[in-house]
């Protein structure tokens, strides 16, 4: 019995009157055999879905973030000059983009649990390795690289000849860094908003909170208070105010966001129309049902109560 648990993907033990030895050797355990259905069809399926979405997004956001330096290398003499401020690089993965994807990895559901039990065929993508395989991985990477191209070359094209309305050129390194960093955070936040299929209050809080935290920390680090304490560390003084007060910069960020996100939206919509998966159909009918049930439910309760 131990070797079969070792050979399988997961080991499940049933605790009962024959003792708890199987429980100690297993990954999951419960007390009644019928709970196996929920373990596989609800929790196992959700876990697979969450893991695949999490992985794809994680590779995407890091490729989008890092590959910008690859493109910049061609224009800075390959001197390993970073495009972003050092503190942005430190905080990007820890603070600005970690919590939204964590929330998606914990709470996401494509289909509620009752439907998962009603349609066992929904379990098939997990068995056939459909949601994260070599092809899906390369698509995630390719999307990350495409995003990095847009995030570098759109600010490059705009800022290289741009000036403020008072004539001061915008092509300095710190303006370029703040523009690219802000565009990156906004684009990956919009992408996680698209990937999240089940928006609990926690998801809302994490996504909007991360964006708000980015702008708060940005303005705090570029303020005079920190500069006066540590002039060498916080030499981006004034960049946030100067850069984000320019309409040209916001136009650049909006342009980069639409170029990155619109193809994703169009592709997903067309895929939903032309080749819907079973989970898409079940999800759609479930939501239509929920909308219809709400007014009927109230009327029903009134009739039942009276």
């Amino acid at each position: 019995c131990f070797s079969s648990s070792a050979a399988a993907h997961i080991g499940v033990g049933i605790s009962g009157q024959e003792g708890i030895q199987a429980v100690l050797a297993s990954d999951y355990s419960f007390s009644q055999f019928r709970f196996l259905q929920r373990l596989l069809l609800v929790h196992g399926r959700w876990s697979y879905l969450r893991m695949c979405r999490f992985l794809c997004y994680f590779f995407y956001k890091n490729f989008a973030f890092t590959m910008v330096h690859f493109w910049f290398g061609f224009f800075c003499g390959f001197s390993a000059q970073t495009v972003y401020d050092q503190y942005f690089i430190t905080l990007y993965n820890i603070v600005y983009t970690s919590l939204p994807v964590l929330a998606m990895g914990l709470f996401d559901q494509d289909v509620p649990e009752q439907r998962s039990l009603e349609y066992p065929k929904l379990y098939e993508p997990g068995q056939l390795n459909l949601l994260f395989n070599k092809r899906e991985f390369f698509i995630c990477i390719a999307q990350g690289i495409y995003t990095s191209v847009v995030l570098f070359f759109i600010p490059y094209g705009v800022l290289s000849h741009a000036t403020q309305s008072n004539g001061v050129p915008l092509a300095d390194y710190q303006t370029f860094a703040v523009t690219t960093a802000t565009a990156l955070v906004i684009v990956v936040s919009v992408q996680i908003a698209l990937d999240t299929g089940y928006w609990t209050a926690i998801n809302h809080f994490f996504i909007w909170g991360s964006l708000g935290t980015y702008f708060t920390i940005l303005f705090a680090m570029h303020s005079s208070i920190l500069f006066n304490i540590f002039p060498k560390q916080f030499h981006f003084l004034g960049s946030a105010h100067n850069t984000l007060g320019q309409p040209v910069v916001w136009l650049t960020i909006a342009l980069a966001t639409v170029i990155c996100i619109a193809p994703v939206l169009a592709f997903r919509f067309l895929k939903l129309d032309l080749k819907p998966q079973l989970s898409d159909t079940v999800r759609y009918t479930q939501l239509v049902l929920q909308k219809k049930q709400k007014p009927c439910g109230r009327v029903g309760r009134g009739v039942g109560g009276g």
Partner: protein
Amino acid sequence: MKNEEEASERPDNTAFTQQQLPAWQPVLSAGIIIPGFLIIGLAFLGIGIALFLTSQTIQVLEMDYTGVEKDSPCFRCTSPSNQTCTCEVTFSLSTLFTGPVFFYYGLSNYFQNFRKYGVSKDDYQLTGDTQYFKSPRDVCFPYAHDSKNNPIVPCGAIASSMFNDTFELYQIINGTKKKVPLDGKGISWWTDYNIKYRNPLPVNGSFASAFDGTVKPINWPKAAYELDLTDPNNNGFLNQDFLVWMRRAALPQFRKLYRRITEGDYATGLPAGNYSLTVYYNYPVLSFDGRKKVVFSNVSWMGGKNDFLGIAYLVVGSLCVVMSVVMLIVYAKFKFSDDDDA
């Protein structure tokens, strides 16, 4: 007793632990996506047209004065010599160049964004901390000490490579030269001038004495405390040209603001006519195949001339509109074919 045991071992039945939190579950429905793409496409087209038309109204005049060709006016300045070489670039304007006119100098093939170049400065010196005057930071090497081991203030490659060509602009009226006044106030960032860079405090009432025991950067003609002896607010580290240079550029081709033309007879702009630009040619760029140029430009609400932004918005806007039409066709075809099958 059994009921108590059951109650204590029963798992939590809250919405959070049972994964039944109330949630919004969005679906990419046609009613949102297709009109959304159309609206974004039309908005981008509108913005693109506004940007493109604004950009077309901006006038720009660029002149390369490096002196590479033998027949260019500054060719004789390219051979290295110790004296300042002066050359004259003439140009003519066919129409009024609407003011206020901004005067930039531009460099190409100049990598201010090179990493080792960018870290080569002493931020403490530049905030006026005299402790670091005598002992500049190591990152300034090899621009921290001169051959006699005197400390250099301001140290580092960025300061050492400061652009030192100067320009005078004259309008030629009936054969005589009339000087065009150039205004150099406030060409740097407000935060640079007021917070980031601070001059050291004068010693015994003399600003130059604050720099005792240090030497100027090797390539500079004058020391930092002599950069502008006529205006103490433009001297030392607060010199506007110095601050403009220290704000390093992101890309190898860049322009930096030199002066504005806003005063006197030229407040409304440069009238049509002949002009002569006198260049005090000090800055050598040919050794690394760089080029120098001057640029005259006026600005609008969106800044200088920027065709890229307008064209990009027009392209993206039209692609969005096209995509929304395509998606509408696909959706209609799919929906009606589905109804036909059913």
